[in-house]
């Protein structure tokens, strides 16, 4: 069976800096595939090319058998690719529930509906509340998003990504800036999610990565130096040398 996502010879450079250097990667349906690598390895740049925020210089991205390399971001989202952001990207001026409801509403064919008040539409609000309840945030659904804490923002970020019901979730450091307790909660949540969705996870927290991932790819200077199971990666000499350091 063909992989859900297949990246071939992807390249992207900014001026003289090559951020993505001949990346080849297959993500199988249902797996949790983690990408690790030192700072500046081009992890976020890679995610941005997959979500459509950036266009690669060359190479191809095939999702569910369809070449999406030149598709705009909104169209990829409609095909079933969603992402979360390393730096929280929510609509701060709206309420928490509005954010999630908009993500649910995005599943509709279009939103050129002008008459009925959006906040009276049951299925958007109910499903939104249920989603927030999974994070224990249902009590704060009607507060302006800006009023919530960083840890809660990270959770809403995931809730918004979930709301789209996308097959492929690109999660860009969901644990960034979380305290130990919050991190544990997030790891538990992702563990629970594993198998239900295909997840491409970028994460700095090594404990989290090795606990969660089915497979891991190591990105160094824009190039993937190894792909394998957590055990294979742990024992890979190149990886130890380049990333984990000599111990």
């Amino acid at each position, binding site marked *: 069976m063909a992989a859900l996502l297949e990246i071939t010879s992807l390249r992207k450079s900014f001026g003289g800096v090559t951020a993505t250097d001949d990346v080849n990667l297959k993500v199988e349906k249902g797996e949790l595939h983690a990408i690790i690598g030192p700072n500046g390895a081009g992890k976020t740049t890679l995610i941005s090319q997959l*979500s459509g*925020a950036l266009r690669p210089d060359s190479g191809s991205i095939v999702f569910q058998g369809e070449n999406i390399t030149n598709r*705009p*971001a*909104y*169209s990829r*989202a*409609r095909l079933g690719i*969603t*992402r979360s*952001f390393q730096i929280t*990207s*929510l*609509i*701060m*001026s*709206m309420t928490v529930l*509005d954010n999630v*409801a*908009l*993500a649910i*509403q*995005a*599943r*509709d064919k279009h*939103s*050129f*509906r*002008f*008459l*009925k*008040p*959006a*906040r009276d*539409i049951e299925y958007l609000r109910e499903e939104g509340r249920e989603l927030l309840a999974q994070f224990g945030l249902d009590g704060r659904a009607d507060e302006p998003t800006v009023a919530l804490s960083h840890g809660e923002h990270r959770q809403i970020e995931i809730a*918004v990504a979930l709301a*789209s019901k996308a097959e492929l979730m690109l999660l860009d450091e969901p644990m960034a800036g979380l305290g130990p307790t919050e991190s544990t909660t997030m790891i538990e949540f992702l563990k629970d999610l594993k198998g239900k969705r295909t997840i491409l996870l970028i994460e700095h927290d090594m404990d989290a990565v090795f606990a969660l991932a089915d497979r891991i790819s190591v990105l160094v200077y824009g190039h993937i130096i190894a792909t394998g199971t957590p055990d294979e990666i742990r024992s890979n000499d190149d990886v130890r040398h380049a990333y984990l350091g000599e111990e």
Partner: protein
Amino acid sequence: MLQLTRTDWLTLVVMLALLILPPVFLWTGNEFYLLLATRLVILAIAAVSLNLVLGYGGLVSFGHAAYIGIGAYAVGIPVYHETYGGFEAVAGYGAGIHILLAVVISAIFALFTGAISLRTKGVYFIMITMAFGMMAYYFFLSIDEYGGDDGLVIDIRSEIPPLNLDNPLQLFMIAYVSLVIAMIVVKTIVNSRFGMVLQGAKGNNERMVTMGYNTYFYKLTAYVISGAMCGYAGALLGNFTTFVSPDMMGWSRSGELMFMVILGGATTAIGPVMGAAGFILLEEFLSSYTIFWHLPFGLILIAVVLFARGGLVGLIKGKGK
């Protein structure tokens, strides 16, 4: 039980005052104030329509006066041809054809200019909308048949039997009802699913695109609706002043509209109305004292922007809901 917020009360009070005071002025022999109120209400319609894109869409259009001009010429040109002959296709005194022309041509102008302008962001969007506005300005300036720089006198007001726009009270009432409808239309749109997408794109466009919204088309639709409504206001203004000139669509006029929205408070229904009221009344009041009224006027506007976040609405409703 219907719960009214402070903003609702404010809306109710302002709209009632706007409905009751002008006729009272007329009956007590101060027709001038009725005329002032009519101009205020018409410009408030334009400000309300601008607020759809500026306040809720975050699209700072610096060319909205163009639609007022288009709307006014949509009255002036058919009347001119019906009176002096030529251009049979549009000639006529009927309000129906005037309003249809005003709205449709404004919508088409908004569609074309918006389609290009919305490819830019921020300062570039402001500049390009202003450039399109000035393009419309010079277009009408260059047509000698319609008076060019001198403008065009509208000899006869739009005919809309059984009403009569020559009657100042009727004209005021039509403008007032139009304003109420415009406010309801904008309010309905911004609360709808479409409106949520528009406001979401204002708050975080990248997030909306990542969710799967092609925000460009949502913004463009709002821009066209706004332009069409503003064109309607222009048709009313042409009927009110019985005169139309390119001066009505210059960039400073666009700036005034923007100021009304910001002065009153964007993202509320009543804000642009209060802004238009504040603007017109202040202008009237100050200019009756001194010919140098622009200076205190400007200073007051700066003070409001600096110290009253949320405009006049924010100032009045304070911290409460």
